[in-house]
């Protein structure tokens, strides 16, 4: 009985397994070899675009431009945003789903630049080309291209504008300033800050410019997740702790969302408006600049960036090598990534009308 029992267990299960194994199709093997990629792919292929959560106008605009631009170019676009709270896990799942669906190129605006290497590797293994959009994906040898604005230059422009703005308002220093930087998990935040400090540091060393709170380290100045409420809270605290009697002349802010939060905080405390920098040319900030509140922003025309990215996709589709203009500077920790850099433009009240002349949404605001 016992023997029969054991034998029948194995026999029944093995028979069933074998029966089903007979119907199986075997494994997929190495799909999408590099040789195939070199020849390009079908003109109506699926192109995946994975963007971070909709925390700034810029990403919403980019998503719309990708949707329309890919459609015009004849591709099937699949544009996805990460959710508001579970950003990294969402983006990982979205990229994997795009690979499953058979996307030929995946464009990624990373929500955390260091946490996507597994998904990028899976895409690469499936023969998918991966383009990092605006944010460099780090610690992966499988990233193909990077397209972005020159972010060090962005920081330099911000630093220079801050100095110019303060000088124009009050001819002689020393000037009291405070520093803000972006989210520490965004590779660009450090680059902006370093760019700005490359301009500000000599002035600080000379004593012309004083960071009155003493908070100069990027870890002290960082605003997690680029969140406006974080910047506002930090500014509130700085005003209370440091600017009871002192005058605040300028604030280095890495982008417009934070700049407006900083201005809100200063206004709430009843202090005079300092020189505040920004970036991204968001509608509210352009209005603020025209009204004389925020001092400057950076125009990184998202249209151009999306256009360049779609040009890369088109080149890959035709089997050509996409055009790049920097093959040395962007090391992601595993390799130097071929990069196409676009130049940013500094915008103040003085040149706003000229800078936004071609922008259907912003041009009317400057008139």
């Amino acid at each position, binding site marked *: 009985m016992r023997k029969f029992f054991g034998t029948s*267990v194995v026999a029944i299960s093995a028979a*069933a397994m074998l029966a089903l194994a007979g119907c199986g199709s075997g494994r*997929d093997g190495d799909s999408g070899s590099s040789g195939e990629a070199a020849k390009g792919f079908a003109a109506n292929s699926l192109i995946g675009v994975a963007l971070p959560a909709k925390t700034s106008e810029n990403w919403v605009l980019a998503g719309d431009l990708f949707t329309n631009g890919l459609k015009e170019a004849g591709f099937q676009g699949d544009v996805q945003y990460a*959710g508001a709270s579970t950003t990294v896990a969402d983006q990982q*799942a979205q990229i994997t*789903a795009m690979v*499953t669906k058979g996307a030929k190129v995946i464009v990624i605006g990373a929500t*955390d630049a260091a946490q996507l290497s597994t998904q990028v590797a899976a895409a690469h293994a499936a023969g998918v080309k991966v383009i990092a959009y605006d944010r460099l994906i780090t610690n992966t040898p499988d990233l193909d291209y990077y397209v972005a604005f020159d972010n060090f230059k962005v920081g330099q422009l911000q630093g220079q504008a801050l100095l110019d703005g303060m000088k124009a308002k009050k001819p002689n220093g020393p000037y009291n300033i405070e520093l803000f930087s972006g989210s*520490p*998990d965004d590779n660009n935040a450090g680059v902006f800050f370093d760019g700005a400090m490359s301009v500000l540091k000599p002035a600080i060393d000379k004593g012309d410019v004083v960071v009155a709170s003493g908070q100069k380290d990027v870890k002290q100045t960082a605003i997690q997740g680029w969140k406006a409420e974080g910047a506002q809270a930090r500014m509130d605290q700085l005003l209370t702790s440091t600017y009871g009697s002192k005058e605040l002349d300028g604030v280095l802010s890495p982008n417009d969302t934070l700049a407006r939060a900083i201005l809100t905080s200063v206004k709430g405390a009843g202090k005079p408006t300092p020189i505040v920098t920004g970036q991204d040319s968001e509608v509210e900030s352009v209005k603020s600049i025209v009204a004389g509140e925020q001092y400057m922003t950076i125009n990184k025309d998202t249209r151009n960036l999306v256009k360049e990215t779609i040009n890369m996709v088109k080149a890959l589709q035709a089997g050509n090598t996409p055009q790049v203009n920097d093959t040395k500077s962007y090391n992601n920790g595993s390799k130097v990534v071929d990069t196409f850099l676009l130049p940013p433009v500094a915008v103040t009240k003085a040149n706003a009308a000229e800078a936004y002349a071609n922008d259907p949404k912003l041009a009317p605001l400057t008139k």
Partner: protein
Amino acid sequence: MSRLKDLQKNLFGGTTSNARQFGMIFTLVAIVLIFQVWTNGLTLRSDNLIALFQQNSYILILAIGMLMVIVAGHIDLSVGSVAAFAGILVAKSMTEWDLPWPVAILFGLAIGAIIGAWQGFWVAYVGVPAFIVTLAGMLLFRGGNQFIGNANTIPVPEGFREIGSGFLPEFGPNTGYNNATLLLGLAAAVAVVWRELRARNTRRAMDADPAPMWVSILRMAIMVGVIAFATLRFASGRVGTSFPISGIILLVLVIAYSFYTRNTAGGRHIYAVGGNSRAAELSGVKLKRVNFFVMMNMSVLAALAGMIFVARSAASGPQDGNGWELDAIAAVFIGGAAVAGGIGTISGSIVGGLVMAVLNNGLQLEGVGTDKVQIIKGLVLLLAVAIDVYNKSQGRFSIIGSLMRPFRRDDPAAPVSPPDAEREPAKAAVSG
């Protein structure tokens, strides 16, 4: 007794808890099939199945611990923060203190145990409600994560990544499949058949009527068929991919914890405490010890889930763990646990978690945005529980009620049967 009645009574009905899983599993299968058709076969393709398990194993691991916490009548809001806190410490321990990765995993589990002991102490011995203790823990350990990591993203070494993104190895002759996965599947099939035959022998030994032989064979055929299908899917992934290691960790935990909660005195004490803590205490259950254990256990599993996520992401980041507690809690309630405690099963929670996971995955394959996915998931959670509550209060026959009944342990042991027009009136009278 007609053959149909035999089938009703014995295939998935009867009173064995094994058979009672049918309802929820039926829902899961329906969702899978709907998406399989809607996505033109992408849902069940091997690469998608593999990704599905890799993406959700950490949430399902959390759901195991959360089920026990909820059954005991508590809640744990801190799991995401605990996971992130353990994740950053483990990442730092490897990159900065050069701990070898197996030691780092033990270190991570130890951190989970220490945090769990801290939270368990407040819940069990001081008597602060778990909601408050873990709300505090949520802030405490999220802050701890940012403090230790300086809100940076810290990469982890290759070996460690295996627990989150690794697969069963390739070895042996080229069969066109991953041999390790085939062996695993064969083992699972043998286990299923062995269990069925042993159950028959036990019933015979107890002089009880075993189910008719043909029903047993049908049941075995269905289960072995499902296992064989899944095995072949996982084994036929792209070379280098197969059944994920995080899936193995999950399987081991599910089996171990299912056994613990179902078949051991310690596990049954958790249900007793959740059902009626005073009565349990008076019957000799060590209330404090049970409460301490479930809270501590939850944090250990949270630390494990955090490590698996970090391993899969190849780095520990400041946003790790955001919102995980809600996913885990949703899985447990969709899986039929009661808010008041005392009711729920591990396997129900896993199936509940898989329902959410398949929904998420299928909608993403269809290119539905995360905004809409969140809306749909929210509605599914609300409706699944609401329809059940409503129908129960009306005393009507409810499909979901009968689907969920397998997970309600306080129910009288009325035999569960598939909805059947002929039997419906009788049923309504019984449950009314």
